[in-house]
């Protein structure tokens, strides 16, 4: 046993960490990242890649739910802790290793629950854990994902929910239930293959926060008569990735479904076995919480291809925590982009963190992560941490490192070749380019600390969203990473652009 234990300890000595920071906790994040870099721990790129989830600050509102769901996607063994200051950081990271090494698969579920409660407790939310509701977010960029290990059985990961009554329930039996109260925040994702027929006539009001994404291959017949339009705020239908609604690409699902407009030339007869009649009376008209259903649209090469509704964010590597990009994807081209902050992340942080040079380096580091340049990103992070040190010798070395990173990035021809000419925020002016490259070079100038270039102001979300229109996913990520998106004191409603 001891041998196995020490083996596990050895295996988990370098866990992969996902750091999520609430607004206003940048300096804390820098400290955490400095410690992680010192220990050569890896940064996770997705929940599946995560061993340890560190939450900086107290998540509130929708962001809290988003993080709960994100946590539910992390495979066991796993560990999470909240963190409001850098005290005992090193010890808590050591404890994380210990916790990972001690957990076994057998008590994974229990541990999951415990961890979730522990984390919520640390965030001061234990009391209303049962009341927390997922207000319709699609979490962690995993549009259409199933939620972690929940495919059907493991209900343990529903952090913060009171799942006791529903464990193992056959959802089919809920016919006629008033689901409003109890099921708030439920993730329906796991109910793959369910027949939803029983839900006919339900009052679906309370289901804000349902993720319907997973209902691939569902028999939706029973929904006849449901009014799907208004009440399902927050439904994410994005899970039909690559799906069309029942295989009928030519469908126009945005209109009234009565009589299905099957698009030019579709032969309904050929779709043997498909009973579309149940969809009569569906009112799927209009966007569901701003998300239109899957439909075809002209792509930029003039082909009508399937589009897929996705939501990116609120937690992604190198992405401003809390920002959500809702868009339709055609292949990997973004159309109809809308940006918004989730509640809980929409407020401007009270104090401006750190010196301008360190902020620029932080910005650069996050951009370099997205641009796929991990070595330079690490250098930028290290320089940033050194600059905030109290030791003048360390600061001097960090200054040299900062200049080195800034020069390396600024003069990289490969990077210029890769990112030039995209993400123009203003009208194209050959004299003064305003593309990703120009913005990044400006961040470099500030990061070097040698010239007094003014820090570029935050960019309003509608401006940013219009710059994303028609770009590829990769481009969009780079464009977002190249600016500072503007937070508002009040929640910014999704801003539609394009058609």
């Amino acid at each position, binding site marked *: 046993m001891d041998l196995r234990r020490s083996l596990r300890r050895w295996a988990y*000595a370098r866990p992969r960490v996902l750091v999520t920071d609430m607004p206003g906790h940048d300096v804390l994040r820098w400290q955490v990242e400095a410690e992680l870099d010192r220990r050569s721990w890896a940064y996770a790129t997705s929940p599946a890649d995560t061993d340890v989830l560190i939450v900086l600050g107290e998540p509130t509102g929708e962001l809290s739910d988003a993080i709960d769901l994100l946590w539910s996607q992390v495979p066991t063994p796993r560990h999470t802790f909240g963190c409001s200051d850098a005290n005992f950081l090193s010890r808590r990271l050591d404890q994380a290793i210990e916790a990972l090494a001690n957990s076994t698969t057998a008590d994974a579920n229990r541990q999951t629950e415990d961890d979730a409660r522990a984390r919520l407790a640390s965030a001061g939310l234990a009391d209303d854990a049962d009341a927390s509701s997922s207000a319709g977010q699609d979490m962690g960029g995993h549009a259409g*994902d199933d939620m972690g290990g929940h495919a059907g059985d493991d209900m343990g990961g529903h952090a913060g929910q009171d799942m006791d009554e529903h464990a193992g329930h056959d959802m089919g039996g809920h016919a006629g239930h008033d689901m409003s109260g109890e099921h708030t925040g439920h993730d329906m994702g796991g109910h793959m293959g369910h027949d939803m027929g029983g839900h006919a006539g339900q009052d679906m009001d309370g289901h804000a926060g349902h993720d319907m994404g997973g209902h691939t291959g569902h028999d939706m017949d029973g929904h006849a008569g449901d009014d799907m339009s208004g009440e399902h705020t927050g439904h994410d239908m994005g899970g039909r990735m690559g799906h069309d609604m029942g295989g009928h690409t030519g469908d126009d699902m945005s209109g009234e479904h009565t009589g299905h407009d099957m698009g030019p030339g579709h032969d309904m007869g050929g779709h043997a076995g498909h009973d579309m009649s149940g969809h009569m009376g569906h009112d799927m008209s209009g966007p569901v919480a701003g998300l239109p259903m899957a439909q075809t649209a002209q792509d930029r090469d003039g082909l009508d291809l399937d589009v897929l509704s996705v939501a990116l964010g609120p937690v992604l590597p190198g992405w401003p925590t809390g920002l959500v990009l809702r868009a339709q994807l055609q292949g990997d081209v973004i159309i109809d982009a809308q940006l918004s902050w989730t509640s809980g992340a929409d407020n401007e942080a009270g104090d401006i963190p750190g010196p301008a040079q360190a902020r620029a380096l932080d910005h650069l580091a996050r951009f370099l992560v997205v641009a796929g340049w991990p070595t330079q990103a690490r250098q930028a992070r290290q320089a940033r941490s050194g600059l905030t040190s109290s030791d003048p010798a360390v600061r001097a070395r960090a200054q040299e490192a900062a200049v080195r990173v800034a020069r390396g990035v600024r003069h990289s021809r490969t990077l210029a070749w890769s990112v030039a000419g995209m993400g123009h925020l203003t009208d194209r002016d050959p004299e003064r380019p305003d593309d990703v490259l120009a913005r990044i070079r400006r961040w470099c100038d500030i990061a070097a600390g040698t010239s007094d270039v003014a820090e570029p102001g935050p960019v309003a979300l509608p401006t940013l969203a219009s710059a994303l229109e028609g770009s590829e*996913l990769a481009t969009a990520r780079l464009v977002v990473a190249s600016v500072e998106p503007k937070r508002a004191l009040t929640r910014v409603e999704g801003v539609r652009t394009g058609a």
Partner: protein
Amino acid sequence: MPELAADVGTLASTWGVLPAALVVAAVGVLLGVLVSAADRAVVTGQGVRAGVEPLRSGMQLLLEQRRRTLAPDRLLWRVGGAAVPVVALLSMAVVPLAGRTLWSTSADLVWFNAMEALLWAAVWLMGWGPNAVHSLTGGYRFLAQGLAYELPLMFSLITVGVAAGSLRSTDVVAAQDGLWFVVTMPVAFVVFVGGAAAFAFWGPFAAPTGADIAGGVTSELSGLDRLLLLAGRAVFLGATAAMAAALFLGGDAGPWLPGPVWHLLKTVAVVAGLVWGGRRLPLLRPDRVVELAWVVLVPLTLLQALVVAVLAVSGFYA
């Protein structure tokens, strides 16, 4: 199967099929560990201490829960996951070790290339299986990138075949008796190493697993699935380095030291060059790289093949 190589003994014919296959697989895995250790050392800045990290990560992934997603295509997902390391190990079969290959066919070079093509299918399946946006986007990126790299890579292999007058990798090594092929075909060498890195979606070609799509193909993988994919990729890169050393750097030729040591040294040199050079670059965005590959690399490698063909006809390699 009929005896394929009468003149050159193979590892399988000397040691028996199973032991030879096990040895070759072990060498492949060791090369994979070498590659990923070197990569880790550069990325995390740990230096030599990163040597154990691949083993540690492997151990950790073995202990980890496998991720289940919603409505996955589980069959194809699992097939893809199993195929990646298998194909990577199969590509080791035609890499000369100590002057002999596991089995010798009259079309070794095409075999190596075919394994790369199978890797396409496997990685695409890994992207397809989980039924998730980022994952599938990664799969698409891999295909687009693969299409652009397939031809230049193929031409660089053909160039080697033309010079050696054979598609058998041991013949190619023998043909470099006087002069390493890298001298007369530097373009083919660079394209081969770069193209193989692109097929292994590594370093500057890692767009299919990029951080901008939350890890892409790997975004929904945990536990064993992730281990298989990452290990397969590392083994493939290691096999590529060993193959590049054999095809362009004279294989086990060299003074004083025994042949296998030379081959190992050259392989390590290729790995070091690949990691050092590759990690100095940011991710090369696929939409830019693809045009470069089609418009610049294809003509360039064709030109390289032409030069080598003229040299071969004039008896330069005889």
